[in-house]
């Protein structure tokens, strides 16, 4: 039986008092993941928003052992912590929680190494599609056309000119015991995957889509809705894979145009019809790539 929202414990292992922006999805991700992972967990965070809003020394919002090191070595650090724990004869869960910058760009070699060695750890990437902590700089995860401070909208170049890197597929290609993409807009799916990651041995990679009201410039109340629209428009796909083989794909009940997704986000405000069409093409391609192998559903 998979977990339900009502099965989660009341106690927070990531407490209130943290200083995330109002409407930030990252604390929702982290708090609920920790409820699934439980008390016997050691958390590592590299440089990211979570590191900053999760506490200012000596005050921290964590109720589990927590440490941080440099930006690029999440994979290496959690490997070392897990081995030290093993040497002590314990079996604590070791989790590294990095942002998209620390995963897509800066942390990818340590991550790839740890995955290849099949270390017994969980790596969580919460993906808010730019370096939000330092003030919204573009990352490998930023989608086409999005305005950031390093891809500003000018007369000649309107926002980022490249597409989002497909990090989840890079991790699937490592053929690790378990990888999954998640979104908090789908709580049941989210909890099931978190539970599965907890109960699997070997390297596990969880990639959570995490809307950022400050960086994406949308109403803080719409954070969850943005996660939902991302999946429904094809800009984000929920699936999981074991040893490189896809075992489950969640296909949304309806498909919405990309326009619906970008409508309420300030980072896409400058979009012309041409740019919308280009982003739509990308989403259609993704949609076909991910859901094309599924049996065709009869139109209602």
């Amino acid at each position, binding site marked *: 039986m998979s977990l339900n*929202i*009502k099965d*989660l414990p*009341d106690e*927070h292992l*990531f*407490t*209130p*008092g*943290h*200083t*995330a*922006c*109002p*409407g*930030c*999805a990252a*604390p*929702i991700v982290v*708090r*609920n993941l920790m409820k699934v992972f439980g008390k016997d967990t050691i958390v590592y965070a590299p440089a990211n928003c979570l590191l*900053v*809003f*999760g*506490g200012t*020394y*000596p*005050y*921290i*919002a*964590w*109720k*589990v*052992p*927590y*440490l941080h090191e440099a930006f690029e070595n999440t994979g290496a650090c959690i490997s070392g912590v897990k081995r030290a724990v093993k040497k002590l004869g314990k079996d604590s869960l070791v989790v590294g929680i990095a942002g998209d910058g620390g995963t897509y760009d800066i942390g990818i070699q340590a991550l790839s190494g740890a995955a290849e060695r099949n270390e017994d750890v969980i790596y969580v990437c919460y993906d808010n599609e730019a370096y939000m*902590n330092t*003030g919204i700089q573009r990352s490998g995860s930023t989608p086409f056309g999005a305005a950031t401070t390093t891809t500003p909208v000018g007369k000649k170049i309107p926002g980022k000119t490249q597409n989002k890197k497909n990090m989840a597929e890079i991790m699937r290609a490592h053929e690790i015991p378990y990888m999954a993409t998640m979104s*908090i807009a789908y*709580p049941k799916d989210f909890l099931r995957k978190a539970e599965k990651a907890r109960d699997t041995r070997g390297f596990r990679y969880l990639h959570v889509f995490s809307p950022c*009201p*400050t960086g994406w410039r949308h*109403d*803080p*109340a*719409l*954070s*969850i*809705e943005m996660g939902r629209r991302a999946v429904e428009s094809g800009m984000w796909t929920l699936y999981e894979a074991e040893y490189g083989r896809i075992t489950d794909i969640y296909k949304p009940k309806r498909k919405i145009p990309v326009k619906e997704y970008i409508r309420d986000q300030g980072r896409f405000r400058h979009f012309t019809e041409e740019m919308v069409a280009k982003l739509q093409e990308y989403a259609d391609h993704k949609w076909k790539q991910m859901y094309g192998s599924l049996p065709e559903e009869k139109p209602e």
Partner: protein
Amino acid sequence: MAAQTYALAAVMEDNYAVSFPFFGAERRGAPVMAFTRVDKDVIRIKTQIYEPDYVVVLDETLLETVDVLKGLKEDGMVVINTARRPDEVQLSREVNCATVDATSISLELLGRPITNTSMLGALARATGEVSMESIERAIMEKFGGKLGTEAGEKNARAARKAYQDLQVGMCRGGKDFVPRKEWLPTVQEMPLGGSIGALETEAGLVGIGSFVRNKTGDWRTFIPHVDHDKCIGCRMCWFYCPEGCITMEDQKAVIDFDYCKGCGICAQECPVDAISMERERR
């Protein structure tokens, strides 16, 4: 950005000006500082400002926790975003004080509780050192250039309204501020590697689980209200609250306002619309 805009307006009137933020992590809604120095001569001093002529307070909840008059010159002035009149405000001492309800102005004209441009208008009137026309031009250049002409004009209108609505007077004094004790261990007392468990110190709990002392409720502009007749106890808000400040009592959602930042996710996601957001009057 407002501090830069004021500096720009001053430069437009043939002054020299320097502006910079307090260095540290910035986050929306969290207390931050920015400084602007204006002079007729070249400015060579590069430090933060410790004895200002004017202090602008964008969020009146800070008045409860911070002595905003610290370092302010005797004949200086504090400009506060509040719905109260100057003589209704109590601070640590009696000084020149000007107030304007910038939050209402911003909500009315911009649709968002972002008050920095409104406060620029208020500051221009309070100092009398920069004209409102220069402020409007500077806003158009800074905000209009970045967010589009329409947004620039809206912000300029908000500044003009605050300029007109500003009330000037004196605040009351006599408020005591007890600075919060901090944990300052010596090198010998410092644990190896700086790693600490839950530790009781003279400053209260430090280490794991100690961030609960940081009450984030004063970031809020809108406050959620739960209709317990409608609440079905589905725990969606409990799951989705970024602060984790919703608890379930008798299968009904109860919100801890010490921490609620008023983001509105609970109201948006409630499947039976049992939660509504209202403007908070403090």
